[in-house]
């Protein structure tokens, strides 16, 4: 059972050796480390253990292991000034909460904090994972607060005061208010309109009619001047930029209808169009609101790069250690670095050696060994070893910051891609305005008295609502449906690109593969008395002692109590020696292992595609384990489906040629490029694009970010880092590539719906415009026609919400469900 092998708190696979157990509600549950045990027991003793029954399954990539930090540091002046805002006995700070991945986490966070003395309020948005906390300064210090957050298992990351103002929140709230005003007032206006239309038919008292018109005017005013404001500002911006968008005719129609109606109301003559205005503004605001929300959801990690770095560093001055804020670290300072630290600066190792995970910087999946004299880079995570480092570059001059700037440049380099609807509506705008002015001029000669009425009817009836409404609505509906299937759109043009792109470029590590080491193959060399599994279990038992990355690959094969290694000796850089059942074994690098039996290194044919770990005893080498990165379970089937859909898959990886070619072979991908630096990947994409091909890039990791930004559309798999998400046009939340296939299906459907709508808009307008221009349509008929037309296209667009999954996705749904249901049994 998986449940017994994984930590109850964080889901990590259990370490080998003496089991760590926490007693929750009288039940012994397995824990992976003392930290998780402490957190789980604290959660239980606080009466918050409902968290465990309601949370989603944690992402195994998510590092929930609690961190040890000297939280008291945050009470020092430097950090206090940066993060905490004090006012009238209350302090306020904005803190990003790491490790929060579902609603249950939000609940745990809220309730865990409320048990602290001195908390005034704490609100956290699960979308942004950002909390605003207010507390009484005298009863709680900032450091204590952060410590409390870490005690319930989250990683608090304070946000500097300047960054705290969240523009998105403001935008969201304003749009929501505008929408609700349009809705509430619009309903009233429609009600009055029904009374007035009925009055037209059955007769109405003159006084009541005028009263209803006046009230309609009054209620429409907030719609026009408050709710419709974004359209006016958008139109004005478009005019100034000399590229009039959909906002221009929308604004003219709203404004002209409103002015004409106001005039009619005040003079008591002529038709009023307040109902059309209200409905128009409401529908437009609603669809734009939906679109905005979809956009905000995955766009929150834009400035995540700098926050990879810790706030403090341990400086050694004259043999004396002190923890100080990173801002005060200068070049040539000596820093001490311990396992688990994030390297805070670019520097040079003075002593010690480290195993550094630089996947954030290089995408290299395996940690790299750094010895004294070698450089280390800011953003690397120290997996093992400790060292002293001489600072070379800090802050904005580190290579991490450089990657960030590269990302910005690549983003700016992006060519403008217009959606199909945008292209059509661009002409539409000009056409509407042209036809209307022609009609005005013509009617000025035919019948000056009707000129305004005809112009208005023309403008209203041709109002490009079918385009302006339906396209965003279709995109919003598709966005929502994609979100439900685990695919978040950041920029809606992905939908467009996915339907016309023919080349899809995959990164390898973490995209086509899982991105963590596993034992791929066991080759028995002479250990015939063992079965495969026994060898693995034996190796796993011995590797328990080791902190080496490759050792982690064995954790999944550990059988508790099966082999009990004694007399364990760690030989750094070589491996482990241990005695099991009276036999002495060595595991690790070939030379070290064969040395035990003084056997010749009889290296069996190596493919060099994966790292190898040997197990041996005094008689020689017993087995060789190939450690590598597994392909994602659905990689092959996803690639096959994408091929069927007409895509040409390409691998562009920074990894070694042997690894990449094997991966390409397994997946049946003919075109692959290995050993590419980020710059070379950029070149590859640029050269493909210069041939006029639309290119989709699927990747993860910061080194991919500029590459992602250069593609026509980019998709980041969730295993990637926060920054990759920020630069990608779309994020796949699932742990599978199948969502990409699903997304392509939905994108194709969306394009179909958008085209249907545009076809409808053309037919409708070709019919209605001549009628209006000829003066055959009263403005109220025009308004009604426009409303019906928009209803039709919006309903058509909203079909995307509901329709069945595309034919390709059903297969993937099953593939995805499998691991989920397995995990659900834990």
């Amino acid at each position: 059972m998986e449940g017994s092998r994984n930590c109850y708190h964080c889901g990590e696979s259990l370490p080998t050796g003496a089991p760590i157990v926490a007693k929750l509600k009288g039940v012994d549950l397995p824990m992976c480390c003392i930290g998780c045990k402490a957190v789980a027991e604290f959660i239980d003793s606080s009466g918050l253990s409902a968290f465990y029954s309601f949370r989603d399954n944690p992402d195994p990539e998510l590092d929930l292991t609690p961190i040890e930090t000297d939280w008291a540091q945050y009470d020092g002046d430097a950090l206090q000034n940066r993060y905490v805002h004090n006012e009238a006995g209350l302090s306020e700070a904005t803190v990003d909460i790491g490790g929060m991945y579902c609603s249950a986490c939000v609940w745990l966070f809220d309730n865990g904090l409320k048990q602290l003395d001195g908390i005034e309020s704490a609100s956290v948005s699960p979308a942004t994972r950002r909390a605003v906390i207010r507390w009484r300064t005298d009863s709680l210090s900032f450091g204590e607060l952060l410590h409390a957050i870490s005690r319930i298992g989250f990683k608090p990351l304070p946000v500097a005061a300047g960054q705290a103002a969240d523009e998105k929140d403001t935008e969201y709230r304003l749009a929501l208010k505008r929408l609700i005003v349009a809705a509430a007032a619009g309903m009233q206006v429609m009600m009055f309109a029904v009374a007035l239309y009925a009055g037209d038919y059955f007769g109405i008292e003159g006084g009541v009619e005028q009263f209803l018109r006046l009230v309609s005017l009054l209620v429409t005013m907030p719609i026009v001047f408050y709710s419709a404001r974004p359209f006016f500002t958008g139109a004005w911006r478009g005019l100034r930029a000399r590229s009039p968008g959909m906002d221009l005719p929308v604004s003219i129609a709203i404004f002209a209808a409103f002015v004409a109606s106001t005039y009619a109301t005040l003079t008591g003559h002529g038709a009023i169009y307040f109902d059309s205005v209200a409905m128009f503004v409401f529908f437009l605001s609603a669809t734009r609101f939906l679109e905005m929300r979809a956009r905000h959801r995955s766009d929150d990690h834009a400035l995540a790069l700098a926050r990879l770095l810790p706030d403090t560093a341990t400086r050694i001055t004259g043999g004396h250690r002190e923890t100080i804020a990173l801002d005060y670290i200068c070049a040539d300072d000596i820093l001490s670095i311990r396992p688990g630290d994030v390297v805070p600066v670019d520097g040079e190792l003075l002593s010690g050696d480290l195993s550094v995970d630089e996947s954030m910087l290089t995408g290299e999946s395996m940690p790299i060994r750094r010895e004294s004299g070698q450089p280390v880079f800011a953003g690397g995570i120290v997996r093992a070893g400790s060292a002293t480092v001489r600072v070379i570059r800090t802050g904005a001059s580190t290579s991490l910051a450089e990657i960030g700037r590269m990302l910005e440049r690549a983003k700016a380099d992006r060519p403008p891609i217009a959606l199909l609807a945008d292209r059509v509506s661009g002409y539409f705008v000009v056409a509407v305005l042209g036809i209307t002015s022609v009609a005005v001029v013509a009617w000025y000669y035919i019948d000056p008295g009707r000129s305004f009425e005809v112009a208005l009817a023309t403008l209203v009836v041709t109002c490009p609502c079918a385009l302006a409404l339906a396209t965003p609505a279709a995109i919003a509906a598709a966005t929502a449906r994609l979100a439900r299937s685990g695919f978040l759109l950041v920029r809606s043009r992905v939908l467009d690109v996915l339907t016309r792109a023919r080349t899809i470029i995959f990164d390898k590590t973490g995209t086509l593969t899982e991105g963590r080491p596993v034992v791929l193959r066991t080759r028995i060399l002479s250990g015939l008395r063992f079965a495969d599994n026994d060898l693995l279990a034996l190796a796993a038992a011995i590797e328990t002692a080791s902190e080496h990355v490759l050792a982690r690959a064995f954790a999944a094969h550990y059988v508790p109590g099966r082999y009990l290694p004694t007399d364990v000796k760690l030989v750094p850089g070589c491996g482990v020696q241990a005695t099991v059942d009276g036999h002495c074994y060595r595991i690790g690098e070939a030379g070290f292992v064969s040395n035990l039996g003084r056997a010749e290194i009889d290296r069996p044919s190596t493919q060099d595609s994966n790292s190898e770990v040997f197990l041996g005893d005094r008689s020689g080498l017993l087995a060789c384990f190939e450690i590598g990165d597994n392909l994602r379970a659905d990689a092959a089937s996803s690639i096959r489906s994408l091929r069927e859909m007409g895509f040409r898959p390409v691998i562009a990886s920074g990894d070694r040629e042997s690894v990449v070619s094997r991966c390409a072979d397994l997946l049946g991908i003919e075109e692959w490029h290995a050993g590419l630096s980020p710059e070379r990947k950029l070149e590859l994409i640029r050269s493909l694009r210069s041939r006029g091909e639309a290119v989709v890039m699927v990747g993860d990791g910061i080194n991919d970010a500029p590459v992602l930004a250069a593609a026509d559309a980019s998709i980041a798999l969730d295993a990637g880092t926060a920054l990759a998400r920020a630069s990608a046009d779309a994020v796949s939340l699932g742990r599978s590539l199948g969502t990409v296939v699903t997304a392509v299906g939905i994108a194709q459907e969306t394009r179909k719906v958008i085209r249907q709508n545009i076809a409808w808009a053309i037919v409708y307008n070709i019919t209605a415009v001549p009628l209006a221009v000829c003066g055959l349509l009263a403005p109220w008929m025009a308004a009604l026609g426009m409303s019906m037309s928009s209803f039709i296209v919006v309903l058509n667009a909203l079909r995307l919400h509901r329709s069945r999954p595309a034919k390709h996705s059903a297969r993937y749904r099953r593939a995805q469900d499998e691991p989920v249901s397995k995990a659900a049994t834990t």
Partner: protein
Amino acid sequence: MSILYLLIPLGLLLLAIAVAAFFWAVRSGQFDDLETPAMSVLMDDDTKPAKENRRTKPPPESPR
């Protein structure tokens, strides 16, 4: 029909109050998170610590 002259302004007054209430709700952040509150009803079970906090409503009786 002259009752309309009273009822419609009254209706508009109610509308204004409703919109004002909504604005207040938006400003106080009640619409920022539309997912967690739905969960919290399910999660406020009897394991709640004795120290009841002021901000959440008392848990509803679990319908069994």
